[in-house]
């Protein structure tokens, strides 16, 4: 009897140790980057040009990361939400629904480098080179099914009473969806968008062969054009992101060691902080929207 009790105590101890160990690793990783970037992480680094000073800035790369995120979401949020509406409100069991589900599952398991290859074969050719648009389309390939699932789940979570009440008042199905169901589902959808945004922001493998991996030297933000690849605002400009840059400077010796490590550390810290902000933001915003919608 004593032995089984001891075994229970030991097992409990081991499981606690594992949990503490894993959380400690995470904290160590976060602290490592925050501490190492304390001296370099400032506004001039974040917005400066890579050629600016001894340390170099990441302005254009930071800009590209945000640019790609925005363009990707512009593609996936409307399409994903519409797809989610279909799956939650219209779909019946059957071959079409099964094919959609199966495809969603399949895409989420395709390695991002393969999505990058697909983008290279299709989007790069279609947009005429390594462009922000090709990168955003590649990101959309695996973000779209995710968005669609999230929207579907959020819409499904809306109680049926709400639909019945709206239909009983004479509203059509579409009116019910757009004026009753969607507003209630929006907090869930927004939370989902922010959580997937973190993943888009950090993605690199799918972008190397689609958005490009060259080092931009200087962006002229004053020059606005949607077609000229020389304008940073154009979807056709080569758009190396922060994540890709971290990989790029570490796999090709284009920077002196000390600068390379300082830049990579600081850019990593920016990425990690962004992920933390996105995570906390998603929770906070989701809760706040919930309150406004339900009035509770």
């Amino acid at each position, binding site marked *: 009897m004593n032995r089984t009790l001891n075994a229970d105590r030991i097992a409990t101890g081991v*499981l606690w140790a594992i949990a503490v160990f894993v959380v400690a690793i995470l904290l160590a990783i976060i602290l490592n980057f925050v501490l190492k970037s304390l001296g370099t992480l400032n506004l001039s680094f974040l917005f400066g040009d890579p050629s600016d000073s001894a340390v170099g800035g990441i302005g254009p790369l930071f800009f590209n990361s945000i640019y790609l995120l925005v363009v990707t979401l512009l593609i996936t949020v409307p399409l994903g939400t519409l*797809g989610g509406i*279909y799956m939650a409100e219209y779909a019946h069991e059957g071959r079409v629904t099964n094919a959609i589900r199966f495809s969603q599952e399949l895409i989420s398991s395709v390695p991002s480098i393969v999505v990058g290859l697909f983008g290279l074969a299709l989007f790069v050719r279609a947009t005429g080179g390594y462009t922000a648009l090709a990168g955003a389309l590649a990101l959309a390939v695996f973000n779209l099914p995710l968005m669609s699932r999230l929207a579907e789940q959020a819409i499904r979570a809306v109680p049926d009473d709400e639909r019945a009440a709206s239909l009983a008042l004479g509203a059509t199905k579409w009116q019910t969806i757009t004026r009753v169901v969607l507003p209630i589902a929006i907090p869930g959808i927004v939370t989902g968008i922010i959580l997937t945004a973190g993943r888009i922001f950090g993605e690199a493998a799918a972008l190397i062969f689609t958005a490009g991996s060259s080092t931009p030297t200087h962006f002229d933000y004053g020059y606005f054009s949607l077609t000229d690849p020389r304008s940073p605002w154009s979807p056709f400009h080569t758009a190396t992101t922060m994540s890709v840059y971290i990989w790029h400077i570490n796999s090709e010796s284009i920077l002196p060691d000390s600068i390379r490590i300082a830049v990579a550390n600081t850019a990593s810290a920016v990425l990690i902080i962004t992920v*933390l902000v996105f995570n906390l933001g998603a929770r906070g915003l989701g809760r706040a929207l919930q309150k406004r919608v339900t009035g509770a």
Partner: protein
Amino acid sequence: MANVAIPLGSNRLERTRSIRERIDIPRRVTLIAAILVVLVVALLLAFIGIRGTRMFFEGGVPLTQIFSATWDPGADPGQQTFGLLPFILGTIGVMVVAAIIAAPLSIGLAIFMSEIAPDWARNITRPAMEVFVGIPSVVYGFLGANVLVDVLRSNFHQQFPLGYSWFAGSLVLSIMILPTITSIAYDALITVPGELRTGSLALGTTRWQMIRHILLPAARAGLMTAVILGMLRAAGEALAVQMVIGNRAIVPTGIGQPIITLTSGITLDMGNTTDNQVWNMALWTMGLILLLMSLTFVFLARRIGRRGAAI
């Protein structure tokens, strides 16, 4: 999937439906959006399938050569060998070792979260897992290349002469797949009915006996799925692995060696080759093999999941 069947408004005796209602534009528009993903999958399979087999059809490389252990794409034309065995075995090797490291930790953590953790501890571990998943892979890769590799090289010089190695790749990957396995395993554990737990405890078992003899067997299919999906992520991870693994195209024999994987092979050479080189075609073949490997894993996970659900 069960659609809400609300019969209101569809009663033909009360009113006829207008043309607009019959065509039901919203339904069609949302259907097109939903079906887009099927089209994307079809295009992806077609493009990777066609480009991935060009090496055999246009490049004239015999199919059997991919099982050769010699990778020598830079030799004079006619002398080149496109053996992909180092890449395939490298991917499998890195993935398996990563799973061996990560699986016990992840499943242990999942058990902790579902059975043992008091609320305050669960409030730390759950967000921690979300942040863990969110950290970009290049960040792990950079950390591996600048910290782990140095530690291995200077402290275990005998075993890791370069630092860049199979083991370094697996270790970095194990950290990356840990949250994946943990969250899926956790979901599998919490779906085990509470009656099984209380029944076991009521018979006088300790908590650990209950976990070992009741909980783990009941959740076995889910736990296996978790490990398989973790391995899937490990096999497909590109940049973090490429940054720490050393990228030497040899058939792996020792864990301290620099080796290569399918993903790192693609990232390494894609930019240095052009469309019509057989070398370039071989990289697409690697992509196709990678795709087929992941599809196999998905099917495996599905089958296990279904069998588990049937029990």
